[in-house]
């Protein structure tokens, strides 16, 4: 958190995700879990009670086989910049938007576990610890010292790898760079993506890929009409992918349209 120093040049970290390049491999999901000390699933966990700070969904064009065509969409916290839904609803200010980075940060240590923010998030990017986190014996040795493991009963979500931002800040300070400039770093998911479909950068820096994607007419954000100010810009040349990004199209009612 910055103090009242007005000379700080704030960053607005964001991402551009190329849906046409995503192979749905899941490397981002694994790298995120490794970086952020997310525990492996409890044996009883399902896809509705898991902890997947970034989750890749499989979408399709709604046509029957063999006209079906699929795509993969990684969804993570969109770090909403406009009246962030989760920030407004938390009863004890456990969520805040960092003005220096634009990152929506969650404080698991202050979280009461009321799950109001989980209900408020339209992207379902917030995850609750339904169980005590448990690692197989010995695997705690592989935990990342830069990230605190959470406990049960609290909510957690993507924070654009805050530990890495911190390390970058410390490195910048050690290198003698001024404290008022934003730092460059890469979150685990963007680093791990084999096809480089996920690219991270500062939206305030016009040269960065996310900033360019934001201006690009081909880019779209999820649920744009909700006007949440999401900082994740998706790209695809396929029209059906772009349409799915907005309001739910009424799939055959009564049928659970399953995917990803």
């Amino acid at each position, binding site marked *: 958190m910055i103090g009242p120093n007005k000379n700080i040049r704030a960053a607005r970290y964001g991402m551009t995700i190329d849906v*046409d390049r995503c*192979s*749905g*491999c*899941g*490397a981002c*999901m*694994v*790298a995120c*879990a*490794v*970086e952020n000390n*997310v525990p*492996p*699933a409890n044996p009883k*966990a*399902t*896809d509705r*009670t*898991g902890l*997947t700070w970034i989750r*890749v*969904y*499989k979408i*399709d064009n709604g046509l029957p*086989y*063999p006209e*079906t*065509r*699929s795509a*993969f969409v990684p969804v993570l916290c969109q770090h909403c910049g406009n009246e962030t839904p989760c920030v407004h609803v938390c009863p004890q200010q456990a969520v805040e938007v960092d003005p220096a980075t634009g990152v929506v940060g969650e404080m698991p*240590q*202050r979280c009461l576990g009321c799950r109001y923010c989980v209900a408020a998030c339209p992207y379902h990017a917030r995850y609750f610890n339904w169980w*005590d*986190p*448990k*690692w*197989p*014996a*010995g*695997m*705690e*040795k*592989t*935990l*990342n*010292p830069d990230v605190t*493991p*959470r*406990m*049960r009963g609290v909510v957690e979500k993507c924070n654009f790898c805050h530990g890495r931002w911190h390390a970058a800040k410390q490195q910048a300070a050690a290198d003698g760079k001024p404290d008022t400039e934003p730092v460059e770093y890469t979150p*685990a998911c963007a*680093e*791990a993506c*084999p*096809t480089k479909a996920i690219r991270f950068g500062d939206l305030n820096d016009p040269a960065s890929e996310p900033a360019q994607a934001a201006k690009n007419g081909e880019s779209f954000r999820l649920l744009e009409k909700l006007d949440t100010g999401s900082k994740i810009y998706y790209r695809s040349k396929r029209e059906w992918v772009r349409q799915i990004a907005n309001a739910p199209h009424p799939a055959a009612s009564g049928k659970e*349209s*399953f*995917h*990803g």
Partner: protein
Amino acid sequence: MKSTRRDLFKFTGGAAVGALLSPAPWRLVTDTALWSETWPGVPRPATGEIGAKYTNCSMCPAGCAVRARTVNGQPVALMGVAEHPFSHGVLCPFGLAGHHLPYHPARLKQGPVAEAKAAAMEALAKCGKGERAAVLDLRPGRTASWTYRRALAQWTDAAYLAPPRTLGGVVAVNLAAAKIVLSFGAPVLDGWGTLGNAIAARDGFRLIQAETVESRTAVLADVWLPIRPGSEVALARAIAGLLRKEDNSSLQAAASQTGLREEQIVEVARELAANRPALVLDSQERSEILALNQLTGSLGRAIVTRRETPVPDSWKKAAAETELDAVADRSIRLLLIDESVPGAYVPWSAIERKLVADNPVVVAFAWSRGGYGRHARFVLPTAVYPEGVDDIPPAVDSPLAMFRLSNALVPAPAGVVNPAEFVAGLAGISASDALRERSDAIAKTGRGTLFTYADAKSARAKDVKPDDFWKALNQGACWMDDPPPRTEIPKLASRRATAPAAADDLPFAVVMADAYALPCSPILSKVYQESNLRLAANRAALHPSAAGDCGVKDGCRAMIETRSGKLEVLVTLDAAVPKGVVQLAAAASTLELFASSARAKVVRI
């Protein structure tokens, strides 16, 4: 002046009020929250010096270069080496969590080593006429493989067995040379060769993926041909006929079997002809399909002969590789299976036939239960990926020979066994220096380039002394061969086609999803259990109409029954799976069952 009791009260009262006006008590109140923040049972990550170690990932033959972030020497995260000229800094989801494997709950740490050794020696002594010892090596081409072959050369008639493969040994694939790739289900972009190489080469070729269910590769392909299960060979025949400009008899048959339109098949053939060299791949390496490469100009360009990574001359006296089918039934008395590193799966039913009827000794070397450990008499624990030092044979898509070591980033537990040294011990040959010997042999040839990871520098091998060569390999490096002086047009081995499954009345055709699912870190629950991104080994995917036909619901338990056995699964309803097809993950349990039959029945439990 005398202080009275009143003074004391005044002092205490004033101090209390003053304290309340200070931050102290309020801080203390909030600090009580610490008790709820540090819950017993939540581990605290160890802090310490951050460092880096380099190695190569041995979870599959791609052997991607790995940089491990270490804390006090313990790896806490893995990432690729960005400057690596072949893997380009890419790791797959399995490799990203490889450092968890030593702590896998199914990890074996102890085993009956002495008994196994005794039983093996006894079996060797008992070997009668027509009986033999054999080693089944699931990942041939390693230095350990040479040790097995040298050991087996000491015994009469001993057999060195490896999973049959057409591509990946002497014959390799050069993706960068292909202008178009027609893949019959081979997961080109998701686990087939070296992921980083496939992605880097992707923009250079057009990809046509022919398979029943749209896989990850098909999603990114330029064209997905949705063909009915079991129609791949018919399609290949039709394309061959078109390329040879023969009559159209096979075209009609192919259209009706695959479900494609004739124009679609003609278009594919046209594209192959117009974009030479056109590479044709098949997930099952069927000869009829791979033979298309002879018509598409890829032999010698996209499919090349690869020189073997050099070995010391003294090793040349070694048993040759034998195919399992070529071994007489009921003739193996001692079978040693090295499944310490994942490789292609050979179904147990095929192996079991070759074992003698009375008391065969089967020793499986594995790092976890679940593979051949279920069938072997002895299971001996081995080191697992970041613990063991082993070399990784070059991947199927590396046109040049490679030599790289998977280094020990953490120590292996005390009870583990080195399979190569065990077998060498049985044969009375020495193997503990095998890797060093091979490294020296390579360095001495003066061929090739050595790329070291720590400094991302390349050096010609002839400029590096053998000692430094060995040292570099142990600290994270990769040797890549020079291109051979002349291109040899490779010959594709013709494999005996497996007998087509008897026409079955069972309602579902079985299709495998994903490459052979690697045994991997528990953190992969993110993709297998906490999301439906990858199909877990205990799940079967069916079209939602199956809910009506078989009475199954999403998430319910069911039995997949075939003529060879049955398997309990959890059902996933997926509209992407066509009707009449059940999709399973390729794992030891499923590959065991669907060895001979590709049709099944689904029964709700």
